[in-house]
């Protein structure tokens, strides 16, 4: 009898476990007017949290503002935010939960290219439009198997094209590149290597380093040895500040240093300190609202967002928050036009033209689910601790 007893207890325990799951998960009653749901998955914690956090704050801010004015045709917007902790498996599960449990008609995010790639197949199979905030061009190519996937971040290729145009104008032919060994760095490196020949630029040094390295002088010393005419550092987080400081400390300021658009957050300049003087980068206009000429069509929208964000969160805006602004606004525009039907939203997004956003003017088409180009970027230089339009 004893043996049967203990195996029964195990079965009963698992039964109780299921019971707990059962009622724990069931939601309470239904709200008044049918809310329009928007699903959002960002890397709020984990290594990519510097992307996810501003994105989450911006998305919530935009939805709150729209809800304050009565939502969309009387329907309040319900933003359901999930944190994928910068992990592909968690992201896969979060997106499936948003689709199955919350039955959202449109999803914004994820923040990183890696996680976006992990959920492309989920969006395609569940036929729910997904607007990624990540940059890799692979998210929307090949277009045939990316019918339901859009992205609001400029591809790295646009940023590289902008940099190379500028370098070509300055007559730079020998370039050294140093990239961080994570998704962001690898994608940048691919574009730099792919597009360099088109601008007859030869890559004389190709260095890589880890996201948590404490010192980049070995890499920079090796680059100095290759005597390049310019250096491109492609990374985000602390390593891009280290690159600037080591470049300055090693007395290499005679060789111009270009950074990736990752350097675009205002917080980086005080961190890098005086060493950042003269650093060049290609940035979306969201980061340089104040110095934009008034005629610029994006200026108004950018200034509103900058003021609202800095007032609410007491910290400078980041270009990654801008991606979330574009994605959320596009989703809201689609909901306003065609209501919460995934297929209609997809078609609406695909036909959106001239949408004025933070990162440029979006012109989507059945062949281009990104809708941006290199002209949506500006060459910027760090002068006296702030951005200035590059000469």
């Amino acid at each position, binding site marked *: 009898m004893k043996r049967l007893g203990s195996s029964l207890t195990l079965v009963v325990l698992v039964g109780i476990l299921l019971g707990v799951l059962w009622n724990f998960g069931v939601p309470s009653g239904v709200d008044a007017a049918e809310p329009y749901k928007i699903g959002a998955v960002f890397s709020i914690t984990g290594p990519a949290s510097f992307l996810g956090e501003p994105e989450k704050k911006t998305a919530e801010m935009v939805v709150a503002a729209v809800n304050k004015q009565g939502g969309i045709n009387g329907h309040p917007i319900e933003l359901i935010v999930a944190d994928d902790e910068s992990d592909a498996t968690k992201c896969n599960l979060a997106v499936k939960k948003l689709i199955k449990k919350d039955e959202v008609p449109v999803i914004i995010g994820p923040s990183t290219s890696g996680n976006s790639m992990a959920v492309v197949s989920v969006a395609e199979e569940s036929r729910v439009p997904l607007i990624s905030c990540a940059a890799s061009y692979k998210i929307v190519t090949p277009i045939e198997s990316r019918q339901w996937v859009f992205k609001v971040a400029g591809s790295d290729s646009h940023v590289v094209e902008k940099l190379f145009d500028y370098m070509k104008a300055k007559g730079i032919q020998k370039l050294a590149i140093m990239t961080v060994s994570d998704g962001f760095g690898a994608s940048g490196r691919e574009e730099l290597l792919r597009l360099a020949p088109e601008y007859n630029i030869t890559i004389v040094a190709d260095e890589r380093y880890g996201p948590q390295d404490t010192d980049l002088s070995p890499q920079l010393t090796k680059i100095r040895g290759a005597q390049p005419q310019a250096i491109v550092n492609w990374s985000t987080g*602390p390593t891009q500040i280290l690159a600037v400081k080591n470049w300055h400390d090693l007395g290499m300021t005679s060789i111009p240093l270009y950074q990736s658009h990752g350097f675009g957050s205002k917080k980086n300049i005080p*961190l890098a300190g005086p060493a950042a003087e003269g650093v060049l980068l290609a940035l979306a206009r969201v980061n340089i609202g104040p110095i934009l000429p008034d005629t610029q069509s994006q200026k108004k929208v950018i200034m509103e967002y900058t003021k609202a964000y800095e007032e609410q969160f007491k910290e400078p805006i980041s270009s990654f928050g801008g991606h979330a602004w574009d994605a959320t606004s596009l989703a809201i525009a689609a909901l306003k036009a065609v209501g919460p039907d995934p297929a209609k939203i997809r078609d609406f997004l695909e036909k959106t033209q001239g949408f004025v956003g933070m990162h440029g003017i979006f012109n989507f088409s059945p062949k281009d689910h990104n809708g941006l180009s290199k002209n949506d970027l500006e060459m910027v230089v760090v002068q006296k601790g702030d951005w200035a339009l590059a000469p």
Partner: protein
Amino acid sequence: MGDMLQYSVSGLTVGVIYALVAIGYNVIYNVTEIINFAQGEFVMLGGLCAVFLVGTLHLPISVAFFASILAVGVIGFMMERFVIRQARDVTVLSLIIITIAISILLKGTAMFCWGKDPYSLPPFSPGGPILIGGAAIQRQAFWVVGVSALVVICLTAFFRRSIYGKAMLACADNPNAARMAGIPVRQMVLLSFVLSGAVGAAAGVIITPISLMEYDRGAMLGLKGFGAAVLGGLGQFHGALVAGALLGLAESFCAGYLSSGYKDAVALVLLLLALFFKPEGLFGSKEAAGLKKF
């Protein structure tokens, strides 16, 4: 030639930090044979405490240095007193899990207090890098080497000369015999965690001006530090210093001449080779390693 010097300078600077982390491992290991997986977090907390004291409270760096050491020492105290000591069935496995859990908790708390962005500290002595033979040596690097040397000297003296130090070593060799000789083993274990926290914090404060500090920086530092500790021979302070420097140089030269991507792998391969072929480390004695009962 300049490059060689530059690689060795940056290698030594980073290597000395690994050495300090390794010393943190040794202090606890010497008394309890526990490998504290949260050692990397002590370094991170040291750096971030200093950032808070200097950045927010505008204290001078010297005060912040000692205050941070004290603060992380207290964290070490609480970790041993309220957690390690409560562990019931103390097996190697449960200790590994406990220290990993503590490192996750420390990382989480740091994330809340300091957020997710990297922070910097003004270098101890202002001014640009000093150029020697084509290599630019940051002034902070001298502080790093100087403070580390000071820590090693003090600790070696403490363990060799002072009564407390000898008592702690006695606890390591034979806790029961030490109890018999009237040594309060519990206090010694507590003291070891406090000391290890302090050493970790010192490493954190002096490295932050060079390489910035953020809430999840502890893990990799902890791993490299353990590599240095094993390479130098667990329990050997001077071993840790030499091994740390070796590790730093190996990394830097690998980044310089081989491929910078595999830099971390070099340090880990050295760790594996030491574990497989010379577990007692460069300076440890064969018998000592053999007798350590795990």
